[in-house]
């Protein structure tokens, strides 16, 4: 009776190639030019489409990256799905984001061009539709100013609305479940660069008590990549970020109890069953092909030894020559001593010397040199005792060498270590609090009644929340945080990645901007932009909190826009920045340190 063959889970990387987006038909509804365009501007992915009820998901979904090659081919930029495979162009990829905030507006302009072109907009001189755009929680005023400038002045958009993606997703799920507004709850949103804890009280974001943890999907992918590259130094090039993202999306999970789960992985049987063996394509590389640091050092030492030997040999030869010359001179001197004067003088002439004293001085010098040479030879001989000993011996090829196994990456505990960094950032050396500790910190700032209300509606959203086991883990940690026998409820968003776009679409349909007459809350019109500046935000149920601080706009060197910087009417108390240093002097003060 044969023992049952061990269960082996062998997978291969799908390495999907993306195909370019088509140019879609403009789904302009009966509102005509008032149909809004909803763009969820994410640091991982951009999601955009028209705001109509018929769509279940946005049709434009692409990575927020642009591949711009340097030099003469600068105009050929590829965006998002135009790039079939990101890996060969990894070093050319640029994103408009720095963490979760837009800083590079040239690339943002390229992204907008791509979005508007593929949504079928052909109007001349301006985009005639209102835009709903997502921004980071507590987006810096400078960034909002630049974004408004880009939308209003470059694209001529009539109305713009900014909102927080997690809040849109929250409202979308509440609408789907027909829960009556205003809602109270606490949102745990985890994206690609950051994770946020956003308390919502009576329908409005309590921004003062929100917190951000700078650990999310991107850091998990980089961590996984480094772990596997260190474990498999021979496969450095095959361990790409795209494959890491695939591993995280499809082969990773969150442990409900991390310590307990790790103990399970100690047992070899569990390991054999649960390890995911990722089969790499055959590459023809044999182990030991790459030169490690040790081998390079060994080679250098070898070269040094060879040099030393040749030096020693040369010294020995010189010594020999000197010895011979010394003997000859000694012989000539003996001629003098023995009285053979004629021969002595002849030899002196041969040697090119004038007198016996010169001969004597030469002899003494040579004796000294010979003595030193002999000393050196003695020393080096002693040092060279260990000469060509056993150098690198080739490792014997194990006859049972399994070529298929050599090309497999064993992903074991990495499956749960990488999602764990959200809860324990110290795994990557970050000293910030993890997500649940931050939640505890945020809750502690409220009264017990408020805490009860918040915790009765914990909402998980964002792409990084989609690991199996995430909801159970949050529930378990919340049980540990909350007082004995108190209640709480955790909900995962119905669509964690698309929820933001769907929520923004719902909001846009419920709150159309309205033309001319009445001002609708949540929309910034062209007139608002010109009067109140680019950093103005019109608040609504899913937006940031607007703090009315006026910042000066730096003018471009060529054009001057006098109507922008002068406020014609101030709405409410507005704080002005009195001393206004120009941007150039600021950049010279700030050290240019790359994050």
């Amino acid at each position, binding site marked *: 009776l044969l023992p049952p063959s061990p269960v082996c889970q062998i997978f291969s990387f799908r390495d999907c190639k993306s195909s370019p987006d088509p140019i879609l038909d403009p789904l302009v509804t009966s509102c005509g030019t008032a149909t809004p365009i909803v763009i969820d501007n994410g640091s991982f992915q951009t999601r955009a489409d028209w705001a109509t009820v018929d769509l279940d998901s946005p049709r434009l979904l692409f990575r927020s990256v642009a591949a711009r090659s340097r030099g*003469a081919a600068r105009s050929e930029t590829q965006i998002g799905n135009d790039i079939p495979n990101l890996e060969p162009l990894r070093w050319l990829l640029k994103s408009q984001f720095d963490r979760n905030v837009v800083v590079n507006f040239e690339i943002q302009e390229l992204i907008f061009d791509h979005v508007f072109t593929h949504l079928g907009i052909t109007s001349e001189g301006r985009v005639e539709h209102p835009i709903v755009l997502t921004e980071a929680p507590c987006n810096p005023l400078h960034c909002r100013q630049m974004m408004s400038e880009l939308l209003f002045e470059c694209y001529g958009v009539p109305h713009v609305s900014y909102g927080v993606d997690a809040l849109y997703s929250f409202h979308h799920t509440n609408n789907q479940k027909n829960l009556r507004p205003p809602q109270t709850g606490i949102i745990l949103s985890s994206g690609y660069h950051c994770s946020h804890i956003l308390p919502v009280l009576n329908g409005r974001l309590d921004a003062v008590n929100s917190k951000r943890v700078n650990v999310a999907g991107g850091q998990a992918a980089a961590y996984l990549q480094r772990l596997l590259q260190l474990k498999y130094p021979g496969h450095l090039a095959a361990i790409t970020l795209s494959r890491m993202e695939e591993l995280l999306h499809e082969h990773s999970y969150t442990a409900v109890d991390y310590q307990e789960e790790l103990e399970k992985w100690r047992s070899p049987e569990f390991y054999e069953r649960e390890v995911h063996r990722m089969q790499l394509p055959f590459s023809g590389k044999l182990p030991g092909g790459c030169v490690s640091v040790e081998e390079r050092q060994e080679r250098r030492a070898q070269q040094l030894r060879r040099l030393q030997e040749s030096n020693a040999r040369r010294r020995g030869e010189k010594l020999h020559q000197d010895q011979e010359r010394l003997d000859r001179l000694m012989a000539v001197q003996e001629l003098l001593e023995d009285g053979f004067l004629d021969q002595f003088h002849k030899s002196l002439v041969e040697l090119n010397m004038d007198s016996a004293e010169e001969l004597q001085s030469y002899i003494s010098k040579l004796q000294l040199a010979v003595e030193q040479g002999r000393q050196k030879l003695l020393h080096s001989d002693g040092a060279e005792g260990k000469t060509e000993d056993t150098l690198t011996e080739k490792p014997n090829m194990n006859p049972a060498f399994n070529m298929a196994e050599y090309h497999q990456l064993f992903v074991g505990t990495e499956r749960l270590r990488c999602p764990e960094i959200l809860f324990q950032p110290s795994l990557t050396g970050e000293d910030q609090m993890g997500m649940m500790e931050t939640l505890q910190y945020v809750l502690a700032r409220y009264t017990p009644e408020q805490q009860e209300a918040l915790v009765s509606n914990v909402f998980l959203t964002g792409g990084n929340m989609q690991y199996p086991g995430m909801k159970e883990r949050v529930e378990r940690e919340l049980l540990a945080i909350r007082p004995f026998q108190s209640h709480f409820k955790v909900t995962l968003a119905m669509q964690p990645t698309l929820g933001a776009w769907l929520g923004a679409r719902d909001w846009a349909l419920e709150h159309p901007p309205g033309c001319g007459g009445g001002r609708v809350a949540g929309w910034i019109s062209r007139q608002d932009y010109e009067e109140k500046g680019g950093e103005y935000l019109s608040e609504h149920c899913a937006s940031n909190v607007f703090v009315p601080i006026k910042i000066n706009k730096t003018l471009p060197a060529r054009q001057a826009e006098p109507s922008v910087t002068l406020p014609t009417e101030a709405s409410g108390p507005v704080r002005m920045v009195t001393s206004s240093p120009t941007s150039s002097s600021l950049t010279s003060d700030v050290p240019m340190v790359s994050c």
Partner: protein
Amino acid sequence: MASQLPITIKSHPLAAGPAALRVKKRPGSPAVSAAQPPGGGTKKKKMSAAEVVTDMKAFGLVDSSPLTSVSTSTEGTAKPPPFKDPSFMHSGIGGAAAGKKNRTWKNLKQIMVLERTLPWKLDEPNYYNIDAPPSLKPSKKYSDISGLPANYTDPQTKLRFTSTEEFSYIRLLPTDVVTGYLALRKATCIVP
């Protein structure tokens, strides 16, 4: 091809400017290294533009002609989309006229420094004060190799391990892999 070179030199000195700038941007290219020795040590910017271009013509370098020919052709092929204002200039970038230094965008650190100088009140949220504070709990120690809870640290390499097999594996690791594991948890020692 020869006819193009005189045209670019004569028509506008501005075209020579970007071409010279482009040449200057790539210090490794043969155009720059060949142009510098004949010109001598330090040159003023305006003089060098004309000199470099004439040197390019004199040496007949192949590099320059593809640059100029591509620049004229790309202006023809790449059409900007119709829905944009063609004369729009980003204000944050400073513009090319402000000098080459200001052409980069501010990164997040610089923007945060600027934000903090604004007159915020204590209870107003901004990007900086919603950053989570450092952790109050001591961190748990895990093995650098397997991720299991680690009770032991190797004094030679400072890596953490759980079992004797891991220890023997650690002692056979090359130094770059050891440094890699330490860098992963930001434990590389700062050499005094």
